[in-house]
């Protein structure tokens, strides 16, 4: 099976600091791939490289087996790669519909086609079984953290996207809201999307992921199936880059 999105031997430096060394990542359609690693392991940098925000120094990105060039967020969007950032990027003073269509509004002549946008937003939210918001015309400022995360995710899937990358979607949420968002993540994969979930939380990772990619100090420590590893092994991969047969063979010094 070819991965829908694959990053091969990615190198990335910021000035003298090399952040990514020959990093590999594969994400498959219909699966949740958890991207784990300690702070500073390079998770967010890798995602931003894939999303076209940072140019890569070396390596290649393949989409559905074809090598592609991603120079801007727009390129990524055209391929169907959407990233939901940690800091959500929603406008508080706009309502849910306006946020979901921000920058890609539907127009009828010179004016906005509000009704068709509202209809489509409502259909998307229902298809994601979002049932907690009172009205999709309420301002985002009045939503809870979980609801905002849901809106951000719904915004990402509205665009015929094929790959959705979520940067720590549950980091700031309570228990019930976390469960809600994880359920949504699982549902996205079940509908055929390739989902990449960046997370620190082992419980979340084991709850929803099919595969785990562990980064250690800017290197890919291992890419494994979630079913093949234990909690402890993943923690070891994150903290020392190796666990038994898994992980980096040659010792890496920080």
């Amino acid at each position, binding site marked *: 099976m070819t991965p829908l999105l694959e990053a091969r031997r990615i190198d990335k430096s910021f000035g003298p600091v090399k952040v990514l060394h020959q990093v590999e990542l594969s994400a498959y359609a219909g699966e949740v791939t958890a991207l784990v690693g300690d702070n500073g392991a390079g998770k967010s940098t890798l995602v931003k490289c894939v999303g076209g925000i940072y140019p890569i120094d070396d390596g290649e990105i393949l989409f559905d087996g074809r090598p592609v060039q991603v120079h801007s*967020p*727009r390129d990524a*969007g055209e391929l169907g790669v959407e990233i939901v*950032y940690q*800091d*959500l*990027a*929603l*406008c*508080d*003073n*706009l309502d849910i519909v*306006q946020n979901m269509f*921000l*920058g*890609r*509004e539907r*127009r009828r002549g*010179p*004016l*906005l086609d*509000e*009704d*068709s946008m*509202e*209809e*489509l937003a*409502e*259909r*998307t*939210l*229902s*298809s*994601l*079984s*979002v*049932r907690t*918001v*009172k*009205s*999709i*015309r309420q*301002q985002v*400022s*009045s939503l809870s953290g979980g609801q905002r995360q849901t809106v951000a995710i719904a915004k990402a*899937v*509205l*665009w*015929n*996207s*094929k790959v959705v990358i979520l940067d720590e979607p549950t980091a700031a949420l309570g228990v019930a809201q976390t469960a809600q968002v994880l359920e949504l993540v699982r*549902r*996205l994969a079940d*509908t*055929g*999307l390739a989902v990449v979930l960046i997370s620190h939380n082992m419980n979340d990772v084991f709850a929803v992921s099919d595969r785990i990619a562990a980064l250690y100090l800017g290197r890919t420590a291992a890419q494994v199936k979630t079913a093949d590893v234990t909690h402890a092994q993943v923690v070891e991969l994150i903290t020392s880059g190796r666990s038994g047969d898994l992980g980096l063979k040659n010792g890496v010094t920080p």
Partner: protein
Amino acid sequence: MNKVKELPGEAIVAATQSPSIGNSFLAYVQRVRGGDMGALPAVIGLVVLCAVFAAARPSFVTAINFANLFTQGAAITLIAMGLVFVLLLGEIDLSAGFASGVCAAVLAVTLTSAGLPWYVCVVAAILTGVLIGTVLGGLVAKVGIPSFVVTLAGFLAFQGLVLVLVDEGTNISIRNSVIVAIANRNLPPWLGWALYAVCVAVFAGVQLRRARSRAKRGLIADPMSLIAIRVGMLALFAGLAVFALNLERSRNPELVSLTGVPIVVPLILVLLVVWTLVLRRTGFGRHLYAVGGNAEAARRAGIPVDRIKIYAFVICSSMAAIGGIVAASRASSVDPNTGGSSVLLYAVGAAVIGGTSLFGGKGRVLDAVMGGAVVAVIENGMGLMGYGASVKYLVTGSVLLLAAGVDALARKRAAAAGLR
């Protein structure tokens, strides 16, 4: 659409509120208590001020004074309407007053010294505004100088520019009948009523059409009763205004009759409708709000933030130009003080009093008109009471501070209510 399957069962996004007058009213009360007051303070202020002045000076409620309010407040209202665009971004334009002066001076010079036809001069004045806005916006967006500093520099430099244009302080008088008519003439009474009928009919038509098309798509539409109330209110108040303005207000009716809606009223109305449409119904307007609400989110959504900022400054300065033309028309002359002294602060005050936030992301063009009315009433009423400039400045300064305070407190309150 997308690849997400429709899942059975729990697809409930629809509003739990049924659309009725009662619920609409409750929702409004909730918004106000949550700190989103819109133009409510301006409306209350207007009613209180009018009541006070009417009680203290019976001449305040005469037909001639009512008409005066419109022509007195027009220039400031027009400048304030433009300022709303810049304020929506969370920026400020301190140079708008003298920008209007520069544009008025350009109008006067091209009209008198160059002797060009009036329409060429008007276009020249507005293009001067566009140029000023482009330069200011470019410096703010592309170079990255804070708008406060850029426009403060503009505030000083444009004063100098006005002096240069009017030859170090001479007074250029304007005799062109068309230009003078803008702020000094009235529509014939029948045209006032015709305009009134068109406005009410169009407003009702737009509301009905929107409700019908939303209902057809199964979206929540405003109930008929609410639409009827809105249209009725507009018809009532606009009707009263047109009636009052059509009363004879000449001191000597046999000699010269003075009736009708001042020409500045339709001018302001047209600009109000156009800019409201731009803000609420176009992509540019949506992006302007987005940049004001969260510039980073707007950038990530692919919105050209710099370009939006420049456009906002261009609109602001162009509206200042139109304000300058009206001011020149009213005074029938341009001097070094046109657009100077308190014009800018009155205009900023008008926008803020009307409910436009100084923090960006919240405001409407209608706010500027409401606030402009408050400023005009203060200026006019204080004059009738016989107070001098000193008291006027003190009162207007206090009102501006009060409005900004209300804005800041509303924001705090909204944060407490979890609305921001």
